[in-house]
């Protein structure tokens, strides 16, 4: 009786597992063959804006006063709808049009205070409307490549002008007062010292070099998947450090268009998971872990 039960469970599990594998392979094949893989980056980019903007809208008294809660909910739903439509060939351009309309209504009026994330998205996403098949356009990929390259070099330039990275003082400041993830380098330095320690300086210099090199390589048109993989790794690392995965997901999505690589299923799933995770935050996870360990 016991062996029959065990065999039945095993066979049943194996059957379910095989069916799941088959379903996954069928969906993956459909994902690749239908070209969704190449349209999903734009969809993820739009979704990242929804995750960035909608939660902020719901907590801003002025926003609620101007638009009302119902309209805000509809605008948020519109962004999600735009994201979904962007994944399909026949509706991708419509999706961008919806995105542009929502942007004009709800985002542009507050152009002075919108997040850096949204600024980058506004430079990148609406331009897709110029192309019937933006996912197949070399010109759109070129535009995004130049845009991200320019932004990386601008960020490098501003850090040099500020003078807080060459001496490591800003990383030292974050290490002393930032969120749990921003304090990760403080493990290696003496907290009583008033000068930024060598680790803070190295971290600062690394950030400078990384932004400059990536900016230049994008501008000169390096088109290597190894470069893309390394850059995605750096972006995820920066996202963990700054506890801001949402912005990194947007960057990853844009780079997937730049390199005409599309988004494999695992990266799309990871990106969406990171958008949800970002609502909670890396620091919250670290705090929970330390709380339990402590």
């Amino acid at each position, binding site marked *: 009786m016991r062996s029959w039960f065990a065999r039945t469970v095993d066979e049943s599990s194996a059957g379910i597992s095989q069916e799941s594998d088959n379903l996954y392979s069928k969906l993956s094949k459909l994902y690749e063959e239908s070209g969704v893989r190449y349209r999903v980056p734009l969809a993820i980019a739009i979704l990242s804006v929804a995750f960035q903007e909608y939660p902020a809208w719901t907590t801003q008294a002025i926003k609620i006063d101007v638009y009302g809660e119902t309209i805000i909910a509809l605008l948020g739903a519109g962004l999600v709808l735009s994201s979904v439509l962007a994944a399909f060939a026949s509706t991708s351009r419509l999706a961008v049009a919806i995105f542009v309309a929502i942007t004009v209504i709800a985002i542009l009026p507050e152009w002075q205070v919108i997040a850096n994330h949204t600024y980058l998205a506004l430079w990148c996403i609406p331009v897709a409307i110029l192309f019937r098949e933006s996912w197949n356009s070399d*010109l759109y990929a070129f535009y995004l490549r130049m845009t991200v390259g320019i932004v990386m070099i601008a960020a490098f330039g501003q850090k040099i002008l500020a003078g807080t990275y060459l001496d490591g003082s800003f990383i030292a400041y974050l290490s002393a007062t930032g969120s749990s993830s921003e304090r990760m380098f403080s493990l290696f330095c003496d907290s009583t010292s*008033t000068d930024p320690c060598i680790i803070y300086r190295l971290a600062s210099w690394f950030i400078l070099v990384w932004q400059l090199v990536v900016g230049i390589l994008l501008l000169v048109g390096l088109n290597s998947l190894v470069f893309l993989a390394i850059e995605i790794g750096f972006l995820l690392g920066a996202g963990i450090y700054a506890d801001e995965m949402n912005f990194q997901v947007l960057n990853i999505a844009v780079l997937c268009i730049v390199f005409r690589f599309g988004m494999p299923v695992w990266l799309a799933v990871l990106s969406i998971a990171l958008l949800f995770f970002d609502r909670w935050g890396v620091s919250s996870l670290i705090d929970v872990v330390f709380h339990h360990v402590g």
Partner: protein
Amino acid sequence: MLGEIDIRKWIIGILLILHIAWIGNHMRWIANDQINPWRMGGYAMYTVPSLGQRTRVYDATFPDAPLTVNTLGYEKSTRLTNYARTFRCASVPASALLAFFDENHPLIGRNLVFVYSEREFVHAPPAAKRVNKGMVVLTWQNERTFTYTNKFCGREEIATATLPESLSAPSPEVPSTTMPDVPSVKLP
């Protein structure tokens, strides 16, 4: 078709040039302390701590503690022009002050000082300290008209505004409430 492609190329080229120009202007503003480095694209975010801009309103006669005030209408009136004081040196317009009195009727007739503060980065040892970056000194000339002096970034601008007919001065016996956690400020 060829013409269409060329138009797209032109648009792309113009957008890239505009973006570079925008970034150049952003750098100029930052270098002159004109804007919040975290705003307008955020190219300079994570170069200094978030400014944490804050506005406090004081009764000029009793400047020991800030008044508890409503600021929704005041902020809404600057939403399209200088939201959250992104432009750090810009004067506060009369429309914002009128919106302020519209939602704070009891303060009509009281001489006020609006103090604007930010967190400023200190290199050694790395820290952020809160400093006053500017103020608006408001003095009533009569029950409907007030003079206000904007003091930002070393400049002073004096102007006068008049309340609309719909706003009137309240009875003089309205006490102000205070926020005990905020230290007093020295007014000029």
